[in-house]
């Protein structure tokens, strides 16, 4: 919040401030340590070039225009003649004068020039606050008050030497989010006496309030207290400059004197108030009740609100006058001709105000204040303050008596604590007399103090204080956290959590980094289009209620759409792009709904798709080796041969890695149609793995087998097969019939050529046989090989090539 320093000084002892050499910024620094964060000191942001203070010397009627006056104004260096249409001018009045060359309007679009108005020369303009953009609507010329000097710049006249203190008040200290609350904290934190200005209300009307109005609370749990005063014969008009100035410096815009005063008291006390036009309250009866379902009100800002039976309203005999604690209705609002006003200062239930605010989307300073909770004691204090100011500023007679309807008195809370607990929590022994003095200054009443046991009464405005720890914080923050020494703690060492998942994930990230991959981050948010383009069902995506970008309203099911967008930006520079991302993905249908994913994207403009794929595969196989695994530990098949739908990959030039029914991951050439859609080259390689499925298979508990002492026999053979056949399938098939002595099969050549026939290719394999207990005979090996040839022929139509 922003508070003019002058306003705070009203509540602080001047001698003490001087003695401590306190300045606004020094106070601010102290508040940062003892209370809440101080953001700095600012000067008023308004500047008024070529606008000066003028004093009116003479007013004459314009000879040719009834509504205009010819005004002689002293502007210091000389006296100027200015034609003016306002009616609130008087001789001796100090007014803002825009000199020729001054620029008015919100964007300075209106330049003041020397002109002739109906035949009379006018050398400038006498301004209202509206014309200076200080408020939205002015009723007359801005009266700058008394004791000014003609000719001084308006900037100086308005801001004087005042400063604005900017503070961030935490939500638990709503009680201090006002001038008095901050002044109180300054008083305690800076050790300056708190000064309560005195004011007296003169109840100078013959009428008694009970005879003028009846107030009834129908729902005591929603409205815990309602106080009211009536002031007669008020004059609605401009607020004096000092009041306007404080409002403007606090970030509010002046409206008229009554509204300005309720706003002023809101800032000063933190208590929202409302003023009704007495003559517009039908039946002179105010009822605080729940609305009837469908009841309507037009608010001060011209919104039509249809209420329901939970909303609390202030009503007269016939209709709603205001939505309680949130906003007033237009029909009973203060108008320029209002004579008698009914002031309301009440306490409404926090939760109810929050719900109604949210439901109707109406957020006001009042609803924010009530939404944070306001102590009951403020209700009448604020009423008295506002009544006093109205009488001072708007004139009128205050009706005798106050209406004060309250449901129940809330007992002042008491908390007992042991000072030893305080020392234990804060880590320092605070002298008991310091404890006593801090608590007393903060308005806590110490009701008993027996040895280490202290009992205090909590001031009613401190609704944030619930537990002894809350009191310990109060003591410690004033005493100073800088007093607390660092302390070392030691704990028994407990066995580490196994945490294999995170450890292997980090290893995988580092492995890809070592292999020349670069890591990118993208958002969890994605569009339905991207989700669907990659073949994921948007209906299975979790959906945000409040997305920042309406097109990015789904939570990603896969890292790939995000990664593909990154691929696009990366490939604009450089021949090779190899990027990866890890992170969480979500799907409503899977169990669990969230898992860790790892995805890669690869483009090498100088490689074909086959070699690009094999390059990416080398990283993948290396990564598996981290966990002691090989591809052959899983089931690997082309997308087209697998049981799952993977729409984003080329159906043939791709691998789906599975274990049982679980999909571990995919790796392959991006589907050409999709690549075209995203304007990526056809050799783009994508892969994605479910780390929560993969990592549990990682197992570095190898079992050593003593190498055989007997020689191995090698057997090379080439097969002609259909060009779509995978060498891996041949190997798997061979292993099934090769017996336990078939140690390994290596692929040493793959070849396509016209001589092989249409749609054929040749695969050359090297078979290695070895026994652990004897040297294998040629006959044995050949017998096995024939079995293998037969099986390959039967299963894969593989024809043995002659050498």
């Amino acid at each position, binding site marked *: 919040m922003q508070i003019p320093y002058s306003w705070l000084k009203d509540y602080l002892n001047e001698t003490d401030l001087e003695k401590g050499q306190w300045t606004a910024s020094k106070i601010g620094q102290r508040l940062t340590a003892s209370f*809440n*964060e101080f953001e700095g000191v600012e000067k008023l942001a308004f500047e008024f070039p070529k606008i000066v203070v003028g004093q009116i010397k003479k007013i004459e009627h314009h000879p040719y225009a009834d509504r205009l006056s010819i005004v002689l104004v002293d502007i210091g260096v000389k006296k100027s003649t200015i034609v003016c249409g306002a009616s609130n001018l008087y001789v001796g009045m100090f007014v803002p004068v825009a000199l020729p060359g001054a620029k008015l309007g919100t964007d300075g679009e209106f330049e003041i020039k020397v002109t002739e108005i109906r035949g009379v020369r006018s050398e400038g303009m006498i301004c209202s606050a509206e014309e200076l953009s200080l408020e939205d609507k002015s009723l007359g010329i801005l009266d700058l008050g008394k004791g000014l000097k003609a000719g001084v710049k308006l900037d100086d006249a308005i801001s004087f030497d005042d400063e604005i203190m900017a503070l961030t008040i*935490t*939500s*638990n200290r*709503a009680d201090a989010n006002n001038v008095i609350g901050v002044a109180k904290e300054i008083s305690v934190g800076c050790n300056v006496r708190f000064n309560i200005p005195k004011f007296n209300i003169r109840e100078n009307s013959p009428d008694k309030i009970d005879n003028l109005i009846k107030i009834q609370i129908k729902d005591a749990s929603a409205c815990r207290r309602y106080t009211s005063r009536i002031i007669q014969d008020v004059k609605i008009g401009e607020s004096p400059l000092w009041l306007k100035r404080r409002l403007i410096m606090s970030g509010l815009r002046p409206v008229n004197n009554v509204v300005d005063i309720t706003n002023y008291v809101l800032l000063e006390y933190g208590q929202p108030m409302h003023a009704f036009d007495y003559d517009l309250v039908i039946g002179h009866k105010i009822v605080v009740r729940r609305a009837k379902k469908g009841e309507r009100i037009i608010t001060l800002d011209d919104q039509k609100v249809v209420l329901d039976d939970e909303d609390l309203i202030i009503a007269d005999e016939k209709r709603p006058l205001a939505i309680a604690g949130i906003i007033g209705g237009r029909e009973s609002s203060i108008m320029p001709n209002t004579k008698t006003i009914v002031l309301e200062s009440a306490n409404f239930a*926090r*939760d109810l105000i*929050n719900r109604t605010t949210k439901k109707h989307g109406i957020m006001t300073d009042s609803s924010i204040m009530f939404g944070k909770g306001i102590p009951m004691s403020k209700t009448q204090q604020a009423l008295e303050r506002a009544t006093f100011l109205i009488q001072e500023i708007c004139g009128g007679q205050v009706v005798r008596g106050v209406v004060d309807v309250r449901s129940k008195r809330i007992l002042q809370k008491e908390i007992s604590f042991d000072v030893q607990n305080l020392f*234990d*929590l*804060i*880590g*320092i022994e605070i002298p008991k007399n310091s404890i006593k003095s801090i608590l007393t200054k903060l308005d806590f009443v110490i009701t008993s103090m027996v040895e280490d046991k202290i009992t205090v009464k909590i001031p009613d405005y401190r609704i944030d204080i619930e*537990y002894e*720890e809350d009191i310990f*914080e109060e003591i410690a*923050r004033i005493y100073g*956290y*800088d007093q*607390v020494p*660092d*302390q*070392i*703690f030691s*704990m*028994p*060492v*407990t066995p*580490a*959590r196994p945490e294999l998942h*995170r450890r292997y994930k*980090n290893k995988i*990230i580092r492995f890809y*980094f*070592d*292999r*020349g991959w*670069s*890591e*990118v*981050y993208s*958002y*969890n948010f994605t569009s339905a289009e991207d989700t669907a383009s990659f073949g994921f069902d948007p209906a299975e995506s*979790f959906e*945000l*209620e*409040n*997305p*920042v970008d309406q097109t990015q309203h789904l*939570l990603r099911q896969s890292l790939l759409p995000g990664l593909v967008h990154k691929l696009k*930006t*990366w490939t604009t520079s*450089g021949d090779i*792009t190899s*990027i990866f991302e890890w*992170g*969480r993905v*979500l799907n409503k249908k899977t169990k669990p709904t*969230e898992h860790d994913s790892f995805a890669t994207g690869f483009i090498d403009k100088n490689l074909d798709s086959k070699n690009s794929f094999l390059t990416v595969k080398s990283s993948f196989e290396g990564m598996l080796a981290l966990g002691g695994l090989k591809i052959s530990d899983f089931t690997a098949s082309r997308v087209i041969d697998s049981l799952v739908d993977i729409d984003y990959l080329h159906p043939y030039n791709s691998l789906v890695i599975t274990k049982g029914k679980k999909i571990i991951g995919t790796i392959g050439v991006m589907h050409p149609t999709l690549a075209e859609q995203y304007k990526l080259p056809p050799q783009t390689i994508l892969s994605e793995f479910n780390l929560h499925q993969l990592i549990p298979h990682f197992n570095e508990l190898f079992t050593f087998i003593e190498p055989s002492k007997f020689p191995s026999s090698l057997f090379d053979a080439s097969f002609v097969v259909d060009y779509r056949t995978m060498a891996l399938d041949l190997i798997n098939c061979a292993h099934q019939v090769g017996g336990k002595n078939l140690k390994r099969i290596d692929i040493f050549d793959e070849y396509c050529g016209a001589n092989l026939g249409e749609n054929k290719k040749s695969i050359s394999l090297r078979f290695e046989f070895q026994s652990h207990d004897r040297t294998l005979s040629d006959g044995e090996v050949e017998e096995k090989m024939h079995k293998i040839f037969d099986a390959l022929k039967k299963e894969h139509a593989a024809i043995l090539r002659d050498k």
Partner: protein
Amino acid sequence: MLSKLKKIQSDAIERIKQARDTDTIEELRVNFLGRKSDLTEILRGLSKLAPAERPKIGQFSNQVKNFIEQAILERTQYLRQKETDSMLESDIFDVSLPALNYRPGHLHPTTRVKFALEDYFERMGYMIYETDNLTNDYDNFVAVNIPLDHPARGMWDTFWVKGELKGKGKLCLPPHTSCIQNRILRENKPPYKAVALGRCFRYEATDATHEHTFYQIEGVVVDKKLNVGHLKKALFDMVQFVVGRPLPIRLRPHYFPFVEPGFEVDVTCMKCEGKGCNICKGAGWIEMLGAGMIHQNVFVEAGYKRHEWTGFAYGPGYDRLAMTRYGITDIRHNFASRREFIEQF
């Protein structure tokens, strides 16, 4: 005879000097010292000489032999060295050429800091957790002393997700890593130290200093009689590790519903060391994290008896730590992840 020997010696020395390679030297060795050489002849014929001459000639012959052998040795060494030198010069290649089969990889700066912090906390004996991206009302709010209708709920601009988790309330993205406090408290028997790292989300517009997706660490330490002094020390040590220097920190009172007392923690500005500069906007301090003593209500909600245990918690944003550490001033670089950015790390 002596003159003949002298002649042999001078001839040999002359020719050894002129030898250009080790093969020639080998030839010379055979010529001058071999079985058929003149010198060998003379040595062999010593017995035929007159006894008076014998010792003198014999001694001189041996001198000549040693002299020639020495000359051959020196010349051989010299020529070998020369041969090695020329061999080395014959196959020079450019060692500044790019490494074969190597492409430099790059880690995101936030990941680098995450790894560093995980190492640090592991060495300090902390258990490490990771937070989820989809959480719920209970874990984020109710469990950490922010019940429904709590006025402080407005402090978190939460992304809500359609749907509900039975018994845990509405779904949401975690606005803070405190969503894991309840789980850590329930899963472990005190005393313990744990940290959780993860992505957090706040509903706000993105600009140079604000990002709706960011990273936090949640430190949770539970034991008997922990106090603000212990928290201060733990924070000081961690900050020292991150910035690499023992920079003073300060605690400012602040309100977070799950701690009491609660703090915002400032670290002395790394650039100006507290004097005030443009980075710290003249304050000399940089706000780094929130912290505090765990609220007893949080313990009670996790099934602990009130006042049986104490603890502290703290939550720095580690993407911000990375920015401080590497001098990144625009937070939008993190998720734009452009080549020009990532390839610097």
